[in-house]
């Protein structure tokens, strides 16, 4: 019944739902595209760093930047403070560069893209319009922007393993003055912007994984919104880890100049694997005066099987710097995948009257482990932040919220409100809350609330009585529990996210 309601309401394909159901406990996106890959040798040395830089045709300053990060990384140690456990990662047993062979000469147009790649996107469930665009259907990219929701547009910069395969809607974005391209292209075409902003939010020395990323990032997205421009469409990157044993090191840099606005979507799926894969991405966002950035993520990488075998290790550094006065950032994340998640999208509220928001749903099932949260660093006056975190643990998983709210002495009259709710499904899982609160001035107000509870028996009874099976009922209740966060997502994502919530919790009851 829940499925029917969802289909009727959200227009999700019946076959998709049926296909997902038929997979049972199997991972929905557990398949692998057989595209020839071009690998750099395993392991990490200065030569590999140089090779990555050379393959991306980078200027010397960029190579040096990477090398200094690499040298720094050699001195660093893996952080151990998160509540996650995993076998030691052999950083020398990873590929740091892989890309589809058919890219060795870059495609002039999307027609030249390997059809298997396009099929990959189809399986990923990229909306039809974008598929057409990605497939190079003539005229598909020229639908004018308008306010009609049914015609909402999303520009995709798809990342297939390590190289961006195509960027759509380029023309329209160009007209608006928006730069949306792969970071390697930006390094070549817009070095002045990259030099100015890359590493200015997450410095190359920031932490073990960010430093590693700085040395070896293969590609990623670059966004620049010029002053006063409201980006005419939502920008989106689909991340995808495809080749076995390939670490994915994406680097995203978003700059919203004065009075600019952009909404950015990041969605991820990865094929089923037996050996764990490493992912260490960095996302940097710079927001100048009166600008606003919304960054939404649905993360659905392979979580490993019921015994905890396989799955992605996701060690991500995401940070937004509200550098300008009255600037605003909003992080929304739905974390359902990965065997291990280590992720703290943060806000540095430097400008006066700047605002940071963090909305998160983290779902763990089976043997998954998630340690995620945010940091709100209030530096400017009258800054405001809001944290809404919903953690759902099932199976034998552990789900930790870890966050910092810091009010610096000069952040007068600032406000923070934090709400962390945890829901436990089953008696073998764990839900933890580790907030840090540091208040160093009198006029700021900080409020933190956290609760932990289980799926309410009465609610379950009510749903069951109306003919829902147990799993449907749990999915419905959990979606209700996480409603505040789901509502913060852009519409395209909200639907996918609701489905994901149900899929992620399969097998957690009964």
């Amino acid at each position, binding site marked *: 019944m829940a499925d029917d309601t969802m289909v009727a309401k959200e227009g999700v394909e019946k076959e998709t739902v049926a296909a997902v159901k038929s997979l049972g406990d199997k991972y929905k996106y557990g398949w692998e595209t057989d595209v020839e890959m071009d690998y750099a040798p395993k392991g990490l040395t200065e030569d590999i760093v140089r090779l990555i830089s050379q393959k991306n045709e980078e200027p010397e300053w960029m190579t040096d930047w990477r090398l200094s990060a690499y040298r720094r990384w050699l001195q660093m*140690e*893996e952080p*151990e*403070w998160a509540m996650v456990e995993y076998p030691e990662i052999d950083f020398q047993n990873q590929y740091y560069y892989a890309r589809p062979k058919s890219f060795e000469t870059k495609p002039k147009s999307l027609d030249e893209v390997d059809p298997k790649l396009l099929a990959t996107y189809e399986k990923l469930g990229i909306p039809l319009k974008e598929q057409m665009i990605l497939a190079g259907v003539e005229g598909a990219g020229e639908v004018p922007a308008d306010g009609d929701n049914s015609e909402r547009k999303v520009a995709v910069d798809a990342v297939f393993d390590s190289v961006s395969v195509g960027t759509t809607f380029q023309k329209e974005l160009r007209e608006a003055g928006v730069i949306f391209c792969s970071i390697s292209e930006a390094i070549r075409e817009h070095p002045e912007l990259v030099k100015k902003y890359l590493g200015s939010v997450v410095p190359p020395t920031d932490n073990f994984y960010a430093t590693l990323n700085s040395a070896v990032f293969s590609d990623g997205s670059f966004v620049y919104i010029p002053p006063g421009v409201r980006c005419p469409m939502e920008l989106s990157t689909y991340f995808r880890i495809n080749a076995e044993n390939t670490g994915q090191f994406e680097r995203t840099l978003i700059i919203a100049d004065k009075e600019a606005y952009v909404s950015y979507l990041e969605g991820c799926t990865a094929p089923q694997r037996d050996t764990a894969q490493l992912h260490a991405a960095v996302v940097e966002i710079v927001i100048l005066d009166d600008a606003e950035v919304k960054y939404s993520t649905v993360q659905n990488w392979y979580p490993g099987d019921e015994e905890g075998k396989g799955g992605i290790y996701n060690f991500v550094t995401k940070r937004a710097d509200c550098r300008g006065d009255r600037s605003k950032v909003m992080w929304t994340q739905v974390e359902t995948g990965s065997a291990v998640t280590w992720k703290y999208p943060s806000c540095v509220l430097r400008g006066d009257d700047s605002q940071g928001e963090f909305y998160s749903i983290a779902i763990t099932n089976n043997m998954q482990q998630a340690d995620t949260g945010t940091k709100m660093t209030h530096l400017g006056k009258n800054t405001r932040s809001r944290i809404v975190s919903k953690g759902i643990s099932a199976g034998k998983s552990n789900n930790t919220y870890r966050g910092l709210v810091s*009010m610096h*002495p000069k952040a*007068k009259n600032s406000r923070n409100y934090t709400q962390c709710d*945890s829901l*436990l*499904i*089953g*008696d*073998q*899982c*764990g*839900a*933890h*809350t*580790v*907030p*840090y*609160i*540091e*208040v*160093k*001035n*009198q*006029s*700021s*107000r*900080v*409020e*933190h*609330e*956290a*609760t*932990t*509870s*289980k799926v309410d028996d009465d609610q379950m009874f009510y749903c069951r009585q109306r003919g829902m099976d147990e799993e449907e009922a749990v999915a419905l209740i959990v979606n209700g529990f996480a409603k505040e966060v789901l509502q913060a997502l852009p519409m395209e994502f909200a639907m996918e996210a609701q489905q994901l919530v149900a899929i992620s919790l399969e097998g957690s009851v009964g």
Partner: protein
Amino acid sequence: MAVAKEKLLARKRDALAERLGALTMPEGGAWITEARKAALSRLEATGLPAPRDEYWRFTPPGALNAAEAAPAALFDHGGEMPVFDAVDRVRIVFVDGVFDADASDDLSLAGVEIERLSDAATKDIHWAKGLYGVIEELGQTPVERPLAALNTAFATDGVLIRVTGKAEKPVSLIYRHESETSDAYLHNVVKLEAGAEMTLLENGPAAARFNKCLEVDVGKGARFHHIRAQGRDHERQAVTSMFVRQDAESLFKSFTLTANGRLTRNEAFILLQGRDASAHIAGAALGHGDFHHDDTVFITHDAENCESRQVFKKVLQKGAVGTFQGKILVQRGAQKTDGYQKSQSLLLDDDAQFLAKPELEIYADDVACSHGSTSGAIDEDMLFYLRARGIDRETSMDLLVIAFVAEAMEEIEDEGFRDEIIGRLEAWLLRRRS
């Protein structure tokens, strides 16, 4: 082990080696020497706390680690009567960390046996064998407490109290600081047999630097009340550790008032081991100027249907720092747990700081656990309301401060004691004005 971790441990052990040079383990009988040696080996494994330790990041441990404490000038209490003096109680007085029989009352009390720790060498105090250092050891997980292990190993004095019935009077531990002594190490053990009941009062600074450990074993259905007022000497430093183990249907209630003191670290570890037990721990801390107060509270639910409640309030100004670290740990199988934790601070000016880490770690699904933590200034609307009724600004402020900490004081069950504590609070506020 990671290199950084190894280096840190080496530094912590070096700090310990330096500290141990200044200490001698007191002589004692077989069992107590064994307990002390076991504590020493726990301590040697961990070393002394370091600023990089997770639970010391808000409170630099340097002053507590130093081989010798900085001397503290004796404090002039003015005309103030010592706290609890009006109460009919059995007084046990320690002067500069040593039991003073002349100043103390006769230690006989119906239903209560009181022994000196130093008599453990000669007397067979069989019931204390399974307790001294034992609950402390339980409290070393999940987080190590080196300064408590140090206390168990080197405590020079203290009392062992066994309660078999309902104590008709409170037992009162008074720690006087009268000479230039710099350090005092006291270790007290309280065992409440099934159904027993007692109120324990504690007050006084003891020394320039006071390291105190209290182990409490609350038997089935027993009830233990604890009310403490830490000395209001400006220069004193203290690290106190409370280790509590509760059996089924037992009740533990503790309240601490801290006004002044350069550095106070109050640690508590409560283990709810029997079902239907209840633990309440509360504290009010008032700091003005050179004041650092740290409450580090861990409550572990390891049985079904237990309740725990933490309420900590801090009023801070003129550079005072208040920190709170608390954890509710619900072990697998501790279903029907009801855990509540509240930590709040009132910052009266821009120099004050509040640092908090209220944690939940939960491994059972049928639980209701929550925590709240807030920090802010006096509400101007409330102030206006009082001022509009003709109350002067300072009195209004004091009223609002008392209202703010009232919730913590409500955890004191006995009205008489509650009034006494409120009286102390009012006097402190009045003095602060001048």
